[in-house]
């Protein structure tokens, strides 16, 4: 069965510090991978998605970036965090292809920027 991991689970960082959040998927190959951000009391905002190693599509221009160095690894980064980067970051995976539908979410990382 497939499993998705995220770490760390919680993170408190000062403004201006760098960020690295990691997501890994087990039990599947060549998945589509997604990063979402969820602000308090709001819906899910798609930040990045990837259909393969080194292939990143950005949905929202901001000071965040994503990378996919391995097939089942997805990393969210920032060089300098802003207060507005606080939120709940969710990684998700889905099968590639036109006739596949569902995205499965990881447990999330709660980021607080002070």
């Amino acid at each position: 069965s497939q499993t998705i991991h995220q770490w760390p689970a919680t993170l408190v960082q000062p403004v201006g510090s760098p960020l690295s959040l990691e997501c890994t998927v087990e039990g599947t190959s060549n998945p589509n991978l997604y990063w979402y951000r969820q602000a308090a009391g709001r819906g899910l905002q798609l930040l990045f998605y990837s259909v393969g190693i080194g292939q990143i599509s950005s949905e929202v221009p901001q000071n965040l970036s994503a990378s996919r160095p391995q097939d089942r690894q997805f990393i969210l980064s920032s060089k300098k965090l802003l207060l507005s980067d606080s939120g709940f970051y969710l990684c998700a995976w889905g099968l590639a292809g036109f006739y596949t539908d569902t995205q499965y979410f990881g447990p999330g990382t709660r980021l607080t920027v002070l």
Partner: protein
Amino acid sequence: QQQVKQSPQSLIVQKGGISIINCAYENTAFDYFPWYQQFPGKGPALLIAIRPDVSEKKEGRFTISFNKSAKQFSLHIMDSQPGDSATYFCAAKEYSGAGSYQLTFGKGTKLSVIP
């Protein structure tokens, strides 16, 4: 532009009652409509989903009703239980090419089931 509108924002239902959450969309390219359930501090989990060629889908106490002509779909939770208290998100899928697709989410409904 919010492509999937979800209502109500919050809902309080008594144990044993029916919870109803509604969603509406405009984009006719959407071809798959899942509902996710999220407990505090956890990632969303797929609850139930429907394709637009079906008007209703039932899984246990959870039912999706789909009205393609009205571009609306809803989640019904029968015999609501305190353990159903969570935030529910509707979503709609659109193929974005190159083997990928995107989900557009509603803003969520916080359901509280009181004993």
